[in-house]
């Protein structure tokens, strides 16, 4: 069954059938060939109960939040503020790229939108200040990936929903690794530009006055982020409530610092509906596949499959990681997560790994997928925004950041507490 499933999955995906539909087809197949009861009868009820969810509505709320901030121009002003704060470092503007991407994708939860916004704002400056186009664009692509790790993250909501684990705990688990990754990115940029100053462009110093004003310009966004994460952490708000308040905050920030109009609000909400439906078709497909696989006794089969391979616990983990790296070259983040969760997570549980910890590990792995060729979504987004040069330049520029991610994966396996310390504190309160 496992082999049939894997081959079927890859074949159907290669035929470019929409990912959500592929998951439904596999579910129907599993039901037909391996299940004792005809589960297809329950399809309607299952779709109703999965989509009627007060948890999942956090997804459109967070998407809406990001759409409002990006469309109202707040993202662009954040970039110039961060530029003033970071441009004294070796690598100058490159740090602003990473910091904006981190902050922004963190508040909006969307990697692609962030990478697109930052590259549109940043590229003209890079040219004027003579930055190396490879490092510069690679940093944007890499920075944009952090958004799916640092809470609020839509990917973590999806993971929590499909594995029935706590979303607040996942959010907390992502916080430290996300910040460490961001620091790692900044560190490696500074190192590269310290040893190869010609890559870094002109360093500029802004007056103290300008920098203080930059801090004030950042305050609203930072407060919004702190309010969302803080209220979830303190247990005052569910992720859905925090997201709704976040949307309200975003509209207020947009009204005071950017431009806001009925048409911007309208475009934001329509963009949100499109993204949400896209995500939901995949989630519903995965829920159905989950459901059929569980009833066909997948857990046991996987267990005996891997026991048959004679691998140790960590050997199996290594196989799983390798699989993500290979699949990640061809399949994108959310799809990659969702198509693998029904198969991999039961195995992870059988191996006695922590599900929250694995969620974070999986996020780093799919982040890597975003910036590794041949199919790295963020690489393409940055490339299409800069409208010149070759895609290969972005790929080379992103390579140092892939290295940082690889180190992060090793670190997470050696010291699981990087992810688990904060959620365990929450659980023990």
């Amino acid at each position, binding site marked *: 069954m496992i082999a049939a499933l894997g081959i079927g999955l890859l074949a159907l995906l290669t035929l470019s*059938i*929409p990912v959500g*539909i592929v998951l439904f087809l596999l579910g129907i197949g599993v039901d037909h060939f391996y299940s004792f009861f005809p589960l297809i009868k329950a399809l309607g009820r299952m779709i109703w109960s999965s*989509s009627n969810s*007060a948890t999942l*509505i956090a997804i459109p709320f967070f998407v809406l939040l990001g759409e409002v901030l990006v469309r109202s121009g707040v993202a662009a002003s954040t970039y110039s503020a961060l530029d003033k704060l970071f441009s004294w470092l070796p690598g100058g503007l490159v740090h602003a790229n990473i910091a904006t991407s981190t902050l922004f994708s963190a508040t909006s939860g969307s990697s692609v*939108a962030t990478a697109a916004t930052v590259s549109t704002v940043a590229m003209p400056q890079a040219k004027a200040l003579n930055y190396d186009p490879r490092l510069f664009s690679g940093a944007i692509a890499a920075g944009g990936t952090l958004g799916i790790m640092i809470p609020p993250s839509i990917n973590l909501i999806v993971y929590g929903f499909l594995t029935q684990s706590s979303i607040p705990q996942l959010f907390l688990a992502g916080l430290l690794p996300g910040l460490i990754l961001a620091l790692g990115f900044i560190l490696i940029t500074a190192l590269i530009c310290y040893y190869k100053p010609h890559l870094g462009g002109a360093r500029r110093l802004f007056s103290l006055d300008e920098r203080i004003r930059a801090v004030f310009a950042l305050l609203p966004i930072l407060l919004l982020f702190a309010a969302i994460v803080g209220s979830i952490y303190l247990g005052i708000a569910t992720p859905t409530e925090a997201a709704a308040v976040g949307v309200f905050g975003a509209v207020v920030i947009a009204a005071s610092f950017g431009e806001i109009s009925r048409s911007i609000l309208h475009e934001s909400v*329509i963009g949100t509906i499109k993204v949400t439906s896209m995500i939901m078709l995949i989630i519903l497909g995965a829920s159905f596949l989950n459901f059929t696989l569980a009833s066909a006794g997948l857990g046991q089969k996987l267990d005996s499959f891997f026991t048959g391979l004679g691998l140790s616990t960590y050997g199996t983990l290594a196989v799983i990681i390798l699989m993500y790296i290979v699949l990640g070259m061809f399949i*994108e983040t959310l799809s990659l997560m969702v198509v693998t969760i029904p198969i991999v997570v039961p195995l992870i549980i059988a191996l006695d790994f922590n599900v929250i910890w694995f969620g974070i590990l999986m996020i780093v792995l799919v982040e890597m997928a975003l910036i590794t060729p041949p199919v790295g*979504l963020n690489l393409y987004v940055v490339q299409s925004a800069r409208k010149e040069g070759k895609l290969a330049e972005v790929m080379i520029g992103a390579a140092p950041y892939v290295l940082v991610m690889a180190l992060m994966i090793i670190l997470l396996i050696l010291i699981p507490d990087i992810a688990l310390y904060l959620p365990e504190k929450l659980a023990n309160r």
Partner: protein
Amino acid sequence: MERLISWVDRVNRWVVSSLGLLLWAGVALVIVDILLRQINLSFGGTDEISGYLMAVVTAWGMGYTLTKLGHIRIEILRARLGDRYKSLLDLISIITLTGVVSLIATKAWPVVATTLANSSTANTPLETPLWIVQVPWFAGWVWFSIVSWIYSLAAIRFYVQAESEKMSQIAGPTESLEEGL
């Protein structure tokens, strides 16, 4: 065929505008509930109502997303093929989608039918009569399958006529990338 597609577009424009209002209303509802809770006035049905909103918004949004080429496909093979084969994959993809979505819509009906027959209410303090929310939810999936049938028929026609340009417009590669810019 073009007229049918532009009819779908017109209906969808109306649909997403309404969904947009529903979503903004959902945001407002959750915020009002948080505020009311501070003065111990919460009516306690917010979770339930936002769940219904989510079900209805997703069901109706699916068809719109299809017409905007928003449902993610893995295009690694497609991108390397000639126009004729690209169109073939697009055709297979839209027809498969139509089949699955029609199946879902068919299987959604018994859910609504049971609710109607038993006049079921939600097992919650609000005791919402479920048909009020399940009928619009079901209608959303029916609309998704109608849209996909129309697009499939158009795709068959464009394939037969070898109109790869038109084919790509209605059933081509995922467009989420350009949208983000």
